[in-house]
Every structure is written in structure tokens, then in C-alpha cells.
């Protein structure tokens, strides 16, 4: 698993539950180091063990933990660059949803060896979308749900999001857009990140 993904779990846990508990996770998971490097590649098995230990440490089911991770990635001030990259998806939340099809390719533009599952968005009727997520990275859809919720807040949109696994193993996320400008979203200046 790419270091960035492991690093995301680490950063999320560290900031949410503290350094002391992170040390405990590191010891229990027998990582042999206390910090992931974002630009290195790690064994999938190691990442799997990390997640198991994290969930056990905080006593919460995996899907909830991963969803919180997704929300954290978009909303924590330290990760502002990531939020900005997602906001490049478009001016409105619907634009953003439509840009998700391109997300794996966009990610590869930035980090060529980071492969995310393919996503496909469909609009069934006004304001009702489904997002199909390829099954090749278990748990990714959970993280995505957290990201989608947090990005809705970011755009100031009011949404209801539902998620289930389909028979073929792929994941189906449904997004019901109730109001596009429910609250004032956060600002996004296109040129703010290049100075």
C-alpha cells in the first residue's frame, strides 16, 4: 500500500487520539518504526494490520473509522492542500461530484505510483447521484463517503449519503443532493495555492 495512504491513517490517528496511543498502535502492530514515509511503498499486509490495531485500540468498527479518516483528510487545517486539490473539481458540489470520474487519473498526475480505484458517477434524476467504486481497494469507499460528506460542508451543500456493497463486490454510494447552497461553504480562490 502506498505510503501516502498509511501516512493518512497515521496522521488521522495521531491528531485525533494523541501520540501516546499512536505509540501503542505502533507497538501492537509490530511495525518496527513509528512513522510512515509518505513517498515509500509498504506491504499491504502491514497496512491491513495497522488498520486492525487502530480499530481495536479505539474500539470502533472499521467502516466508521475509515469514514472519519475521509472527513479528517478534507477538513483538518493541516491538510488544506488536499482540500484545495479536491476543490479544483469544480465551482459547485455537482461539478465536484462529476469530477470524481477523473479522480484516479488526477491523483496519478501528482503521484504516479498511487493507484486509486476507478469511480463512476451517474445522475439518475435531478439531485440524485450514484457513485460506483471498483472493489480493488477494500475500505476505499468508506473513506470516500467521509470525503463526500466533508466536501458537501465545504461547498455549503446539504446532502444525504448512503453506502452499500453490491453483489459483484463493487461499492455503491448514493448521494441525494437536498440543497446546493444550504450553508455558506468555505472559500476557494483558484490562485491562492500557487503563490
Amino acid at each position, binding site marked *: 500500500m502506498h505510503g501516502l495512504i498509511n501516512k493518512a491513517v497515521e496522521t488521522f490517528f495521531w491528531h485525533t487520539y494523541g501520540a501516546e496511543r499512536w505509540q501503542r498502535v505502533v507497538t501492537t502492530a509490530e511495525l518496527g518504526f513509528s512513522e510512515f514515509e509518505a513517498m515509500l511503498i509498504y506491504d499491504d499486509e502491514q497496512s491491513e494490520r495497522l488498520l486492525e490495531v487502530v480499530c481495536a485500540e479505539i474500539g470502533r468498527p472499521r467502516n466508521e473509522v475509515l469514514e472519519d479518516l475521509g472527513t479528517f483528510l478534507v477538513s483538518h487545517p493541516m491538510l488544506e*492542500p488536499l482540500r484545495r486539490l479536491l476543490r479544483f473539481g469544480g465551482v459547485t458540489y455537482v461539478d465536484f461530484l462529476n469530477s470524481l470520474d477523473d479522480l484516479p487519473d488526477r491523483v496519478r498526475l*501528482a503521484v504516479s505510483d498511487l493507484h486509486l480505484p476507478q469511480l463512476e458517477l451517474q445522475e439518475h434524476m435531478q439531485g440524485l447521484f450514484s457513485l460506483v467504486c471498483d472493489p480493488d481497494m477494500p475500505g476505499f469507499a468508506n473513506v470516500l463517503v467521509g470525503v463526500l460528506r466533508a466536501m458537501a460542508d465545504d461547498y455549503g451543500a446539504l446532502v444525504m449519503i448512503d453506502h452499500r456493497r453490491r453483489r459483484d463486490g463493487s461499492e455503491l454510494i448514493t448521494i441525494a443532493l437536498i440543497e446546493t447552497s444550504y450553508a455558506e461553504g468555505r472559500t476557494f480562490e483558484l490562485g491562492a495555492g500557487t503563490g
Partner: protein
Amino acid sequence: MTQSDNLAAMLDIMCPMSISVDQDGRIRRVGPTLQKLRPDEPMPGRLLLDFFEIRRPRNNSNLARVLTQPGERLDLRFLDAPRTELKGVVAPSPDGEGAVINLSFGISVLDAVRDYSLTSADFPVTDLTIEMLYLVEAKSAAMEASRKLNLRLRGAMIAAEEQAFTDTLTGLRNRRALDVMVQRLIDSRTRFSLMQLDLDFFKQVNDTLGHAAGDHVLQCIAEIMHEETRESDIIARVGGDEFVIVLNGLVEKHRLSMIARKLISRISKPIPYGGAKCRVSASIGTVRAPETGFVDIDLILHQADLALYAAKRSGRATHVFYSSDMDDRQAPMGAPVRPARVELDRPARRKRS
């Protein structure tokens, strides 16, 4: 709607940074994004040259001719600040009256987007500007992650080197570090002196008060040596109770004597440990670089050893300078050494401890 209105509407969508001019260079129409760059000065009706200087072609006296050349390159720059540069391509109007110039930011896009607070709505989706901005930010983020990794690796490397060069008990340099640093001084032809310092009675401390006491004494003495020398000097622990001090650029006998005496006098003061007092003292042999400088590290250490040996033999808590007549009195390893007449460097009144 006239045909030219239709064309204008098309251009506004597909080329929002285009500008239409008549054959005299008077602006007939301007795309919404281009107008956004000067929101308070409506461009239509005014001359192209009221707003822009022509950067290319260089000889701009012939604007009228350029406007008749399909595909001609026409680079512009705003006359007033922000003096954004724009790249352009000319397409003569189908009606034969003037031309359309399609403009783009080129490489100045990063500044322009910030200067004019442009949004993705200002660019048609076919324009790669947004992708380019995205890429710039994504690359910066990825570079930042790589840079952090590099910094950490460098930190780890320095720590590893430090460790390999450091005596973990006292934090002083070790023998390996000493060799490297002295060799460096020799190579750079720096003059320096080298003191070999040996503790007296250290074994008794270890034997009677235990190793923890011994360790404590070593740490205190390391501290004393730090305090009595300069930042640029090198202090190394080269054996259980043996130390070497390299005094960088210092060969004056007088000053060296003062340092040695100060060291001996401070080290000879009892060191409290728990309820007990640890008493040790020190013997020092010093070798000074000759006029020609040192040539060989082994020879220097050997000479310092000879001086130290002489100091030990003439009673403890003594400082002796190396002199060449010690060489021939050198005894084979383990053999009893013939007492040498040595130049004692002893303070007139030394406090015994």
C-alpha cells in the same frame, strides 16, 4: 441576430479571452475573461494600443498588416499594472474587416489567476489552465512530502554519524572521530597541540564505590574538560580513563601549561557521589606541533604517550611536554622504563587532594 452577433456569442463561449478589432486596431468586441482583467475600463470602442503594448512582432508599426495575416503571432502586454503578458494568435475576420486575436496567459497564468481572482468559470472546460494549476499544486504537495523524507533521512544520517563518532557515556568524541579530525587538521596544515590525559586512582573509585560512581566521575570530568577548552577544540575519550584533547591552532607553551594546570587542579577536587566523595587526579602529556606541522597521527599519539608516561613517572597530577630526548628512552612494551629526566610542568604550589 446578425451573423457577426452569432460569431461574437460563439467566441465568448469558446475563446473568452479573445478580442475583435477592426483594421485600424480599434476594439469591436472583447471576451468576458479578458474584460475581467480590466473590469473598470470597458474595452470596446477604444484602441488596442490604449491597453496594450505589442511585444511581438518586434516592429509593431505595421499592426494593420499583422491583422491580415492568418495565424500570425501577436504577443501583448498591459500598459498599466499588473503588466500581465498575453500570447496571441491572429485570425482575420471572415467579413474582411479587421481580425480576431485569441489571447492566453501562457506561463504567466499562475500570477494572473491570483492577480485577477479568476475562477474555473473564467476558462472553458477545454482550456487546460485549471489542469495546469492543479498540477502545480499537486506537484508542490508531492515535492513537499519528498523534501520532508529527504530531511528526515539526512537527520537520521547525521544522528548515525554522530553516534558512531561519540562516546555514549560522556558524549565526547571517540577514538574513530579523533583519528578523522586529527587527520583533517594534519591535511589542512593547521598547527595544533595534543594533550593525552590519564586519570589517576580511577580504578580505586570503580573498585570501592562501584561502576556507577566511576561513570559519574567520567561524566563530571568530561564536563570539566568542556569548560576548560574552547568550542573548536576536540575532546575524545580513547580508553576507559584516557582522554585526548586537541587544541586547534594553539601551540604556545605558556597557554598550554595554564590549561593543563587548570584541568589537573579541577579534576583533583573531590567529586561528590551519593554520600561519598570520589577522589581522582590526572596526569597530562602534551605534544606541540613542530614548525613544519605534524605529519603522522600515529607519531603524534606516540609522542603524547611518551610525555604522559614521563608525567606519570614523576608523580601523579603532573603535566609534561614531549621533548625529542624522550624518544630514545622508549622501552619495549611491558618492559620497565628507564626513568627519564623530564621537564616537569608543575605549578609552584599545588593543592594535594
